């Protein structure tokens, strides 16, 4: 007779085999022949209720911010650009680290943060229940399908109509080499359709602090700078390609401003000489090498030398 197996053994086999608590993966040879998963989305509306927002703020301010501020040395610039704006707006940023959303949400003033939701990739952030719940609660996250299309933006539109600001990363995924990737047009399309201001944000140094593949920042409190730029207002008759290009340019100017000064960056922008932020041409290692170069510390000068 076959050996009897206890419930614990069975549970362990199922938990291991189906990677409970981790992202489900399929056998390699089954890729391409696997039926699409059911179109079920983790419910997130509860996280945007009053109670959910109070809890979110408590977690962001009471836990996330102290951790990030303790492990890295963030500085924030340009929040004054928000003063004359009215919700809803779309915050867009380059995306190179898991720190990005936390940095934006913890640097936003409370009145903005309280009504800001983050678009998060459904296949990554909403794959297992605990990650879904964490994303919804802490980031006010809602699932967005990377494939695009009407379904992908339906929830975003619903939130905008309800007066919510959105945090969107137009690259769609984190950069693997620290440089900015091609912007997907869905973000510009959405901004045009909803006629909402787009606030560009450049996050400099997050890749060097915690690149893709790391789950904790590097030692030594690496510096990070979050620069808010002037809002872009969709123009009458503007195409989504044009708006997308303006968005990329705005972020590139913020990078330039970070590297030099606001004045120099403005002059270069006026002459169309803003340096590209898509990185150097060349082998992958070179791009990673350049992208992960620690940024210089500046800002507060030591009181004495």
């Amino acid at each position, binding site marked *: *007779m*076959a*050996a*009897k*197996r206890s*419930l614990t053994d*069975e*549970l362990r*086999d*199922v938990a291991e*085999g*189906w990677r409970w608590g981790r992202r*489900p*993966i*399929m*056998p*390699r*040879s*089954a890729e391409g*022949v*696997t*039926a699409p998963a*059911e179109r079920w989305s983790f419910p997130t509306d509860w996280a945007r209720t009053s109670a959910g927002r109070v809890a979110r703020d408590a977690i962001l301010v009471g836990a996330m911010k102290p951790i990030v501020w303790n492990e890295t040395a963030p500085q924030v610039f340009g929040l004054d650009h928000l003063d004359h704006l009215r919700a809803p707006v779309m915050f867009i940023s380059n995306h190179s680290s898991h720190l990005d959303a936390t940095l934006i949400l913890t640097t936003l003033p409370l009145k903005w943060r309280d009504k800001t939701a983050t678009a998060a990739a459904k296949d990554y952030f909403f794959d297992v229940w605990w990650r879904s719940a964490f994303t919804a609660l802490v980031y006010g996250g809602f699932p967005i399908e990377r494939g695009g299309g009407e379904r992908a933006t339906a929830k975003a539109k619903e939130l905008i109509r309800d007066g919510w600001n959105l945090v969107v990363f137009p690259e769609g995924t984190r950069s693997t080499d620290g440089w900015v990737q091609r912007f997907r047009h869905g973000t510009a399309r959405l901004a045009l359709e909803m006629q909402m201001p787009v606030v560009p944000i450049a996050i400099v140094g997050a890749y060097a602090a915690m690149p893709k593949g790391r789950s904790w920042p590097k030692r030594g409190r690496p510096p990070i700078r979050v620069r808010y730029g002037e809002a872009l207002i969709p123009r009458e008759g503007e195409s989504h390609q044009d708006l997308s290009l303006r968005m990329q340019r705005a972020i590139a100017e913020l990078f330039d401003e970070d590297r030099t000064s606001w004045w120099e960056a403005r002059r270069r922008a006026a002459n169309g000489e803003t340096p590209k932020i898509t990185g150097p041409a060349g082998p992958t290692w070179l791009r990673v090498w350049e992208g992960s170069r620690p940024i210089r510390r500046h800002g507060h000068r030591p009181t004495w030398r």
Partner: protein
Amino acid sequence: MARPGFVLEVDERTPPLLIHQGEGFRLEKFPLGSRVIYPPDALSKIRDVRGAIRRALADPHGSEPLAELLKPGMKLTIAIDDISLPLPPMQAPDVRQLVLEEVIELAARNGVEDIKLYMANSLHRRMTGPEIKHAVGERVYRSFYPKDLKNHDAEDPDNLLFVGTTDKGEEVELNKRAAESDLLVYVNINLVALDGGHKSVGTGLASYRSVRHHHNVHTLLHSNSYMDPRAGHSAIHDSLRRMGKVIADAGIRVFTIETTLNNDTFPEQFGFMNKREWEWSTKEQATYLAARKLNDMGPSPAKHQVWMRIRSPHGVTGVNAGSTDAVHERTLAKLHEQQLVEVDGQSDVLVIGVPYLGPYNVNSIMNPILVHCMGPGYIFNMYRNKPVVRPGGVMIMFHPVPWEFHQVHHPSYVDFFEEVLAETTDPSTIESKFEEQYATDPWYIHLYRKSYAYHGVHPFYMWYWGAHALDYLGDVIVVGGNRKACERMGYRAATTFRDALEMASDTVGRSPSIAYFHMPPFMVADVR
């Protein structure tokens, strides 16, 4: 369009795989690199089955419409596939019921009065009233049972007719009423390519005198394969084709109605059994765990009852009517669309899980001989071109092989197991030395005719079905099998899959290629 079958290569991402083991199932981890053959997904079912039946009867292949064949004063006999089909039995309404109701409605409208219905059970056990009622539906049952709706009796000399002999000397003896009717309508469920075509009448309504010509060791050894009925590929089908010609030449008019079903085998409660493992939802993982533990804990008789009450949600995928050859050609095409899976090359080891049910233990017990019939007999032979396993390879099957028999249904099996297999397991020796004695034993014949027993010769046929595999394979190892029962049948029993692979290494070496035939649902490996 349904997703086709495919062959998975086990890697470190592959979860443990479901494997059936009699009235149980388990998850088993397979060595990296093993190939797993999965059946295609269920084809979409016909929504309006009655409409499809009406259209098939009105516009048949190779025949006039049925309505034109039905005339006042004629003798009409309707034969119906018996309890061995489908597997598991269908949720009501059974497709046979739907077909019968349309045929009888046409007969009534056309003034036919003399109608007899026969369950085409050949040498199988008689069906009970409730079993017949489930198959034919309450309306047909109430109208015809028991006077005009009966089980075929292959040992009733008064109702058998010798029809003729084929050019190879095979005798054809059929149900007399069917043979003497003006029209014989055969209502079939074609579950696998082995069934249907000329096998329906040539076996279902035949006697031992006739069946023995194709259910014998020589024929079954030369049927490569049972699932490939094309001329020259399967001796059993060639024999049946010759018999079909004799029947046609004798002027017996057969109007064949064949139906095909999809792969939707298990009801929703057991939905995880219909799905590929890595696609199991959390709910299905939980259902597996709950079902597995309940099944392990439950007392054996209760467990047996639960399994036997499973009714499959099979959907009808095709209805074809007309002349036997024209209809069967279309039926096979539909079957292949549902069941064929392309497999590249053979393996050293074939792994199968023998499920709780086969054609001969519906509402009964799967005794060791039926395990042999299902494993080396049927599942091994679910291929086209060549077997999934190489010559001299090993078959590892999962089944408890309990030393247990249904005393009413399988009396001759008990004696076959105790007397015949105790002496030899060689099919040819068994055939020459014991078959006639069992086939003509008056007590077995009495039990077959008056009780609900399989014919005395039936266990022999079960053994012969496995003759090809026994001749072909180097070893058969049964994981979890009763040691004594396995030993009696010439198998080796292993406690675990790992032990079985270890034992197989004597025959196929330490690094064999392994193929797991992930069945049920039914499928046929098209091995290239």
